[in-house]
């Protein structure tokens, strides 16, 4: 590689691969919630309100997934009665919500984050550990 690259250029270009991590918020137990605190790294990149709104929406969806509602109860009973063979045919409530979340994230990326050079990654790929956005 005989070509030389200006360090500055390289840095500016490579900055795109930086990751900003939004950590889990464990203040209410092991429920899957993410911190709505606006990371300073995104200070100039995106509107704080928008970011918080995104995270809040995600938190709501995760809360819905883990909710002990009638649907999950019925699902459990059905699974018991069928010796859990129903899991082969049906998608669980959680999985349904996860799909919803994935769609939501993609939609947010398309509309809001990609134009600003950010990318939200689905936390499920990281074991619901962190939500990170690639700068």
């Amino acid at each position, binding site marked *: 590689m005989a070509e030389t690259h200006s360090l500055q250029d390289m840095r500016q270009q490579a*900055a795109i*691969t930086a990751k900003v991590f939004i950590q889990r918020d464990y203040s209410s137990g092991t429920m899957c919630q993410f911190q709505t605190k606006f*990371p300073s790294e995104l200070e100039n990149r995106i509107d704080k309100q928008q970011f918080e709104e995104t995270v809040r929406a995600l938190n709501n969806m995760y809360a819905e997934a883990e909710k002990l509602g009638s649907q999950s109860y019925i699902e459990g009973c059905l699974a018991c009665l069928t010796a*859990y063979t129903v899991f082969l045919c049906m998608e669980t409530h959680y999985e349904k919500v996860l799909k919803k979340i994935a769609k939501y994230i993609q939609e947010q990326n398309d509309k809001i984050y990609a134009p*600003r050079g950010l990318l939200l990654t689905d936390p499920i790929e990281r074991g*619901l550990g962190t939500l990170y956005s690639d700068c």
Partner: protein
Amino acid sequence: MPGSSSKSGGRGPSSSPLPHAVVPSSRPLRPSRYVPVSAAAFFLVGSTTLFFCFTCPWLSERFSVAIPIYNGIIFLFVLANFCMATFMDPGIFPRAEEDEDKEDDFRAPLYKTVEIRGIQVRMKWCSTCRFYRPPRCSHCSVCDNCVEDFDHHCPWVNNCIGRRNYRYFFLFLLSLTAHIMAVFGFGLLFILYHRQNIDRLHAIVTLAVMCVAGLFFIPVAGLTGFHIVLVARGRTTNEQVTGKFRGGVNPFTNGCWKNVSHVLCSSQAPRYLGRRKCAQSVSLQPPFLRPQLTEAQLAAKILDNGIQGDLHRSKSSLEMMESQSCDAEPPPPPKPELRYPGITRGNTEECSLLNKAPPTPTMYKYRPTYSPGKNHTALTHAYANQLSRGESVGSARDSSSSTSSLLQASQQPGFRSQPSLDRRETSSERVGGGGGGERREVGREGGGGGGGIPGYSLGGRSYPSFSDPTVLSAVASRSSSSTHTSAGTVHVSEATTTSASFKSLANQTPPPHHPSRNGSLSYDSLLAGGDEFDKAVGVSSVAPDVSGGRPCTPAAGGGYSSPFLSSQQREAEMQSQSTQSPHHHHRSSHHHHPFLHHSSSSTSSSPPPPPERERLLGEPHLPAAPAGQTSAPPPPHHHHHHHHHHHHSHHHHHHSSSSSSTSRPPRFAAPHAGPHHAYPYRTRSTDTPLGSSSTTHPPRSPHPPPLGKSLSYSSAAAAEMQYRLVRKASASAGANAAGVGGGGGGGMGGGGIQVPKDELMQMKSLSRINGGQPFSSTSTSSCSAPSSPCHPVNTSAPPRAACPSPALMLSPAHKPQGSGVKKVTGVGGTTYEISV
């Protein structure tokens, strides 16, 4: 089965090392793992089949056809739950991507704390899986995975029981109990009606089935009752057995009804492994908004030679991370996102340079300043990493050879005391964790030998006794048998882990000096008590940084500085603060938490002090450690220890009484019970004795390092040596003469810790110098530096390798209460006073 036992022994310390080095997929086949599950399946299916074939026909004729139908349904339920519990992923966390820069793993603090409903919970760094374990997550050494909401590893289903399959396991227990009761009951009915022709085949078979059912009924019913209580309380087996919430508040409970409904009715949690990654079609098209870099930022970036990565980026991500109060997982190394092909990521070769520096645990990467010994640091660090890796992987065998070399390697000039401690501590902790995992396995093997045990292997270790009274009656007898075996095996591994922990300590080169918040995050957390910061006026590099606005300053949910101080701790720290900000205390104090019980429990020279430390490092629970550890005058932290020792309730008394004793283990922590209160999990009850003990401490010495654990000493020994080197360079002569004299004289007699390692001796001597702790003083005497008036009190064997280093020269430099004394927490919670 000798054959299977030999194979099963393969996972013990005597067998080939590297349980963690083996990738799960290529793990060697261990037939012994399948024995219990095969036996369980055999008995279950076989007995029930016989029951259906021999007993049920007559029953259905004589009484009703509903009997076999009822039994059939229950049996089907049992089978279904058994299969689900056996084959379902318990909630395994995927391994975080391997950091390209492996050094980072050893720089991250071992623990991070989060606040859950007002209670401080500690998240430990898992060296195998490379992330901070979320709350309630634990690493199973049998499966070599971190499991979410880890309950236990059940050998009867040969699977971990975690979040996803706990419900099935619980229902399996319930249905199995019902099934056994039904089989036994109906078999009894059959026999009662066939008393005359009992010698018929049908009757004999029914009797045999009844015997099997009766035999299994007691442990199964006991286990079922135990789990019913756990579900009602909202605890996992792991938490119950390790006594995490004993006397405390369980932050994970939502009330009995909600707990039960959560277990039974919640939706099936998703699995994390093997998920299909759906390709997303978003494409990032430049140009997009990007903040203009200031000249300073550009200059900073350019100064960085690219290997360390983007300073700006890392710093901001570091700030971001610090501002976040918890790190469930360290961010993975930045890798190009393949999902978004449209994103222009620059030339790959350009990016690779910058990608080399993973953002986490990146705290240390981007320190503006670097110690003068950087070159040495890098060399030794790399060397240390290799060794440490080997350690963590599990080859903790030949400590002596590598130890000496490590000691030499670590004796590099220009090391900053704080960073080195930090690194060593983390690495040693990690190694300890890894070693603890090994030991757990060994324990499991020993425990598994006991037959009829309900098969609790918590992280591979079987816990002989449960604090829960409902279970004691059921499993006490079995537990005791397993305890002995596991205790024996534990010792074996403990010795190895000790060496491992020390090796990792020695290997750790002092990290670059991180004056700013970046540094604080890493070693601050490790530092105990925070006193060191108060007194570390002399440490110019540290002082300004420390007092500077750290990002991990408690602030609004930042880092883990504020959250984890209990009220008492904060008060103590506030009182003792001199110049440094309280944050240092906080940060350092919280790292005391894991080690508090260590030091407390093994002030005395119990035979396997390392295991204690290892255990504590590995998990916040204490196994059935040798009771002898508590016999010696324990340091004040013992009461922390007793919380972990749910088995040995008597330890509590030891600790409580000893906490007020004057002879304190050389704990470099500040006199204020700052670090002692550090562990928020433990309730206030433990804090109080600490407070009292701490109050008695100050008059004695400025920072009585409560190095109860010899193991912690050993791990800190290497750090000690490095510090001594630093001291030597900048030491003020005879600074600590007074302190040393007082400390040495006082602490010599007490403790009598029999440390198997030379390093431990050194550590002890150093701690003695600092604060006078019950240590064997031979090391001190033999290695006493010219300026340090060490007082050889004890007569333990002189340390082998300790002397070569100009170790004790540090001692004089330590001022009992000097302006220039800085306390740094070493591995195992040892606090060193470093005079600057």
